């Protein structure tokens, strides 16, 4: 029994965005599902591998974004790439939308089944395959999360450092081009995916760099690997990813420093990077956030713009790195520079940064939080932060700021009452102004979270009509009938 009520709602979430009109699922979907495509699915992945239960479908229609749940018509649980391919062929034959699902930890509504269809939950494909310690690479299936992989690697001296916060599926991280606090030193998914195995909409299995290949670099042909990275399930279902691994740091030092102004904090960041200090994490918290963290965790940091830094390296080299950073902060008027080497003190120093999300929520109990996500060149960061903070005050909004300042990427954690439509509307307008402010400064409307449902119009503004046409051309080449995760990244074409 299909419930069409979900699909007939607009997707206005906390940010109050009125989405484009939701496409009513084509009659093909309803009748195909009603007419026994379910038994075809069952013959591929077994009785237990297909679910039409309402609870299961709801679970697979939402992620951690503010977008409302948009459940698929059915959820399938393939166990291997052959099953994924067979299921895709069935969907293709019946023109059923396909929505890949990893851990459901996305932040932009990427798994919303806006046209109904079939959710491919890949959680049963959970093997770590082919670890090559001497080559620093490993291949994993979509059910492997980043914490599970690092736990698997724990005796080897290797780790996978991309850390978006959530314990996300690594293939899902590839699909959304995930990043995190470590990107300034170790890069994002774009720099760390060597190869992908992908099932296309018609069931063909594509190896983006060739089957089993894992050279550290290549000049062979079009870069299909990075075409698929960040494609958010709109070009194919990722069933394997080959990742670049790094040595676990010998030693880690954490440091904290506060500044008289945003400019001083950003200047310090730029200079630390220019000085060649290989800082592993450099995070910015604004005064509102520092205040929230002080209250939440009973700390007594100065309520002013602050930097939280982390250094990775060999025992000897860390002292130099810390000293260089400390000199730079002092030069820019920084004060209260503290640093620590042992795990317990480092934990305490970074507690403010770790608790940022909860500290923000605690500012207004009963409210929900939504993270904005823009990225600009470093030199424009002070200006965009100052203008954004002014906008927050004028708009009477609560939005403590935390940023991966080494990348020019920051998040306003908008704390908003989900039952106050007027406030939701103000947040919606603020978020659009913020994205356009970032675009005006040569930046991007999404540093890490992806385009998903909510930023499709902004993407068009950002890349321009020619890029959008080219993207549409690529989409048409790989998925001419728009079965792969419809409604994401690209707006529906004008007829």
């Amino acid at each position, binding site marked *: 029994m299909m419930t069409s009520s979900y699909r007939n709602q607009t997707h206005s979430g906390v940010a109050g965005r009125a989405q484009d009109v939701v496409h009513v699922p084509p009659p093909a979907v309803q009748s195909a599902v009603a007419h026994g495509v379910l038994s075809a699915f069952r013959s591929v992945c077994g009785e237990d591998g297909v679910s039409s239960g309402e609870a299961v479908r709801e679970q697979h229609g939402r992620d951690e974004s503010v977008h409302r749940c948009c459940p698929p018509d059915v959820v399938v649980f393939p166990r291997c790439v052959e099953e994924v391919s067979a299921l895709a062929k069935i969907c293709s034959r019946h023109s059923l939308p396909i929505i890949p699902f990893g851990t459901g930890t996305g932040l932009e509504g990427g798994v919303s089944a806006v046209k109904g269809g079939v959710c491919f939950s890949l959680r049963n494909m959970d093997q770590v395959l082919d670890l090559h310690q001497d080559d620093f690479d490993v291949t994993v299936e979509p059910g492997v999360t980043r914490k*599970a992989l690092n*736990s*698997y690697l*724990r*005796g*080897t*001296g*290797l*780790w996978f450092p991309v850390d978006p916060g959530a314990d996300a599926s690594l293939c899902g991280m590839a699909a959304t081009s995930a990043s995190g606090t470590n990107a300034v030193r170790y890069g994002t998914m774009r720099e760390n995916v060597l190869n992908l195995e992908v099932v296309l909409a018609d069931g063909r299995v594509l190896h983006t760099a060739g089957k089993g290949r894992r050279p550290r670099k290549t000049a062979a042909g079009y870069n299909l690997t990075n075409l698929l990275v960040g494609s958010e399930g709109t070009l194919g279902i990722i069933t394997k990813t080959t990742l670049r691994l790094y*040595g*676990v*740091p*010998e030693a880690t030092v954490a440091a904290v420093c506060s500044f008289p102004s945003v400019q001083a904090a950003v200047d310090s960041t730029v200079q630390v990077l220019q000085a060649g200090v290989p800082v592993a994490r450099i995070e910015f918290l604004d005064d509102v956030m520092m205040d929230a963290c002080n209250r939440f965790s009973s700390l007594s940091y100065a309520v002013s713009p602050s930097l939280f830094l982390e250094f990775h390296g*060999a025992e000897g080299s860390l002292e130099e790195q810390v000293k260089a950073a400390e000199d730079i902060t002092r030069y820019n008027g920084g004060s209260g520079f503290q640093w620590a080497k042992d*795990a317990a003190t480092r934990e305490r120093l970074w507690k403010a940064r770790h608790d940022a999300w909860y500290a923000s929520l605690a500012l207004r109990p009963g409210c929900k939080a939504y993270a904005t996500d823009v990225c600009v060149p470093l030199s424009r960061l002070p200006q965009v932060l100052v203008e954004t903070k002014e906008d927050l005050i004028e708009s009477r909004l609560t939005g403590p700021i935390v940023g991966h300042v080494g990348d020019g990427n920051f998040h306003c954690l908008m704390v908003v009452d989900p039952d106050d439509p007027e406030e939701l509307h103000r947040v919606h307008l603020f978020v659009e102004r913020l994205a356009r402010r970032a675009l005006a400064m040569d930046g991007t409307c999404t540093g890490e979270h992806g385009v998903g449902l909510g930023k499709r119009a902004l993407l068009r503004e950002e890349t321009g009509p020619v890029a959008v046409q080219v993207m549409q051309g690529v989409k048409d080449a790989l998925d001419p009938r728009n079965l792969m995760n419809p409604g994401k990244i690209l707006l529906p074409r004008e007829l």
Partner: protein
Amino acid sequence: MSGRVLVGVKRVIDYAVKIRVKPDNSGVVTDGVKHSMNPFCEIAVEEAVKLKEKKFIKEVVAVSCGPQQAQETIRTALAMGADRGIHVEVTGKDYDTLGPLQVSKIFAALAKKEDAQLLILGKQAIDDDCNQTGQMTAALLDWPQGTFASEVSLEGDKIKVVREIDGGLETIKINTPAVLTADLRLNTPRYATLPNIMKAKKKKIAQVKPADLGVDITSRLEVLRVDEPPQRLAGVTVETVDDLVAKLKESGTI
């Protein structure tokens, strides 16, 4: 005091692996399955290495009983900071039937031979969940024991141990030499780094047999059968209280 600490480390099926019972119900499938150091043993090694870093003790010796692959587990301990290893060779059927009583006899013999000041073990292994080896070893040696330790501090020739017990925490002070068993919250084990893994390759692992230590490892236990837990059946929805009572009576529950 010798300043030497012995740490027992057991090679077990990795905690993240889905366990499968062999078709003949004689045991679980171990061939081709990922193995690693028992998580509580990792915590024990970390505690020993920390004590050495704080200069309370001088040498950490990692001990494991089993076939050739047990040496991998010892190497992991060496990469975490242990100084040398002892591999007690037990293979084949003997290994299949090796349990806490035999292992504690081996550890007791080694503790005496190595003049150990302290023996640290994980509180239990995640494959058998016995939680016996530490206690048995202490009894055989007639040493005091600080089990389920969540905090350990050396105070002169005594040890203060905070133990996790059902009602909360219990603090005891025991003499050395002593046996400690590590509980979950004692510490967070460090990851082995590549340079330390390379250094560990050069550290020594001595080989001994149980007979060399005068220990008889014949088992007094025989495993008859291993079964998976029963499959959970689907629930049944009832419409009324009367239906519920009828069903409960039907199933003999009331």
